[in-house]
């Protein structure tokens, strides 16, 4: 695809090779067993670098300006900040104990971190590099989603089985919605109207009306030849136009695609073993998935709806983020 496009450019405009890096995204994968971030070139799909970080890296996200990576290193009770250009840790952020997942406010100024061991969410001022508040939530906070306007934060608690809606001004819980067992990931739709919450043990995705705080649909999954207990919903991603949604199904080794109008499953993609999380390429023509047991990254071509490649990335890949 990329090859074709470059050729066309060459034919039409002569030496415009400088335009080519438009497609050259970089993929960052946190390997929780290796304590490394694998850096993968989106063009060649080859590993360019491995960055050593703290112990058990899982949650990973880009800074607001895209020059740094924030990485939750749970076993070291902190967040490592990696300078992407140099591939070095430049400083750390005080996350509170055992951070696993977090979300950056849309303005890039605050990080909201789930502290699994202490039933709370820590708010970090990124510039000041300090915790500026915490919010008491249910047992084992995990998933973190934020509304597009940054006003509402959603945290899931794995043993309480709720999505907690938090006012980010007041740092207080304004609503709670019960979902199925062991909720993992919370994600707002881009219009801010819905929050999707995956339940690992329940094996479902609850679609919550963000204004009414009601579950409007529970999406269930069924894969021929896979026992129900192996279907464990975790990572969720949606295209910017809001039309296509993808859910990682853990040990079912599948990604489910969901039609966001009907909220029905459209198709399943067979990927590597125990798929945790997923991320789009910037043009949304590809979807990358981290497969924790088979230690690889699956590449799904979203135009042809085909899994086109798997790349070995290291020990127990978990989190993933793509930099344009």
């Amino acid at each position, binding site marked *: 695809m990329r090859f074709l496009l470059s050729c066309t450019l060459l034919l039409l405009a002569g030496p415009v090779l400088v335009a080519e890096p438009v497609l050259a995204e970089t993929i960052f994968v946190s390997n929780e067993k290796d304590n490394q971030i694998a850096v993968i070139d989106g063009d060649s799909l080859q590993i360019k670098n491995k960055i050593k970080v703290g112990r058990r890296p899982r949650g990973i996200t880009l800074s607001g300006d895209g020059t740094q990576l924030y990485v939750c290193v749970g076993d070291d009770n902190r967040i490592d900040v990696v300078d992407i250009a140099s591939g070095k840790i430049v400083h750390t952020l005080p996350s509170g104990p*055992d951070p696993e997942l977090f979300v950056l406010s849309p303005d890039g100024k605050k990080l909201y971190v789930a502290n*699994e*061991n*202490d*039933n*709370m969410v820590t708010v970090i001022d990124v510039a000041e590099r300090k915790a500026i*508040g*915490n*919010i*008491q939530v*249910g*047992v*084992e906070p995990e998933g973190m989603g934020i509304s597009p306007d940054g006003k509402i934060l959603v945290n899931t*608690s*794995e*043993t*309480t*089985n*709720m999505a*907690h809606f938090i006012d980010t001004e007041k*740092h*207080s*819980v304004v609503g*709670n919605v*019960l979902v*199925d*067992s*062991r909720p993992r990931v919370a994600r707002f739709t881009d219009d801010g109207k819905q929050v999707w919450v995956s339940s690992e*043990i*329940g094996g479902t995705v609850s679609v919550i009306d963000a204004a009414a705080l009601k579950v409007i649909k529970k999406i269930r999954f069924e894969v021929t030849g896979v*026992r*129900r*207990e192996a279907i464990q919903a975790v990572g969720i991603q949606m295209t910017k136009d809001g039309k296509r949604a993808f859910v990682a199904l853990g040990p079912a080794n599948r990604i489910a695609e969901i039609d966001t109008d009907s909220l029905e499953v459209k198709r399943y993609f067979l990927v590597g073993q125990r798929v945790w999380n997923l991320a789009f390429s910037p043009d949304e023509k590809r979807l990358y998935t981290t497969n924790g047991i088979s230690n690889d990254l699956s590449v799904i071509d979203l135009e042809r709806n085909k899994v086109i490649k798997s790349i070995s990335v290291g020990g127990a890949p978990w989190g993933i983020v793509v930099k344009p």
Partner: protein
Amino acid sequence: MIGQLALALPAAAQENGAPEAGAKVMLIGYLARQEDPRTPLSFLEPVATDEGLQGARLALADNNTTGVFLKQSYRLVEQVLPQDDDISAGLKALADEGVRFVVADLPADALLAAADRPEAKSMLLFNARATDDALRNEQCRANVLHTAPSRRMLADALAQYLAWKKWTRWSVLTGRDSGDALYAEAVRRAAKRFGSKIVVEKSWTFDTGNRRTDTGVTTIQSDIPLATQGPDYDVLVVADEAGDFGDYLDGRTWYPRPVAGTQGLTATAWSRVNEQWGGTQLQSRFEKLAGRWMTPRDYAAWLAVRSVGEAAARTNATGFDDLTGYLRSPDFELAGFKGEALSFRAWDGQMRQPILIAGPRMLVSVSPQEGFLHPVTPLDTLGDDAPESKCRLNR
């Protein structure tokens, strides 16, 4: 920690465990008798004097954290009777306080005595201790659910793993306690079910004494080869529930063969070696509370108290009939840090659950093993399935 939170947050939601004003208080009873502390043979293991109780306390705190958001609150009414005290007095005291859900951390005979009391008719007891198969069969009771696995579940879990390993010729060594004989019975049944053969059975007849007795290693080193001599086998299956001698076996047997059963490679509901499926959080929460490891008995009590909390959260009800109905329904599912949802079997009230295959220092596997199929759920390949159950309750 609590202090720090209280500073940062003004609302009532901060103190875990403290009933919120206006919240409905649900009572959960914990019924047990004082016992001599269990003293493991290994010095690495903690001597526990509060097994079971701490599991119930942790689950209570978990329920209350959730309850804050639902305006539900829980209180644990602890009834720990003196040794040999009549169990009915304890049950009556709970009933007088209005308790209807009771975690029974009791051996089988005491559990039955409690369940058959008139006050217990309007109660639900959680058997968080007794592994006796009879309690799930001939002696089953309508007012009892079991969060502790049965001996058959444990033996089946081990047998599946040994079948997967193709270690199918077993030598069985059984201790002197009545529970050991029952464990050995479950092992025989499991061998038949999953295609293994017991080539020889022996009884342990040696004295082992106190773990601190300083006799060097001489006695035990000569006793064990004698006790394990005979026809060759793949694996030595030991039935020693109290832990009187089983830990001495590994490394001392006549043949160079692994030890499994109640020691060595152990089939168990819970073990410190497990940190899969978010188990890290449960282990660290427990250790912070109790100052020691979580044992299978703590885990069973945790499951019992969490079951009540889960039912109350899901039904948004606190009525006894609403909650018991939901607990027994197919809709009930509890996340128990073992990778899949746990629920109660309709035919005998047993909680279906994966069983860990744990080594002394590492998690080895988890049963049911892949390939042992079941039309409803592979979890029901462990223990008594509906067709074979001798429990005749009209549920």
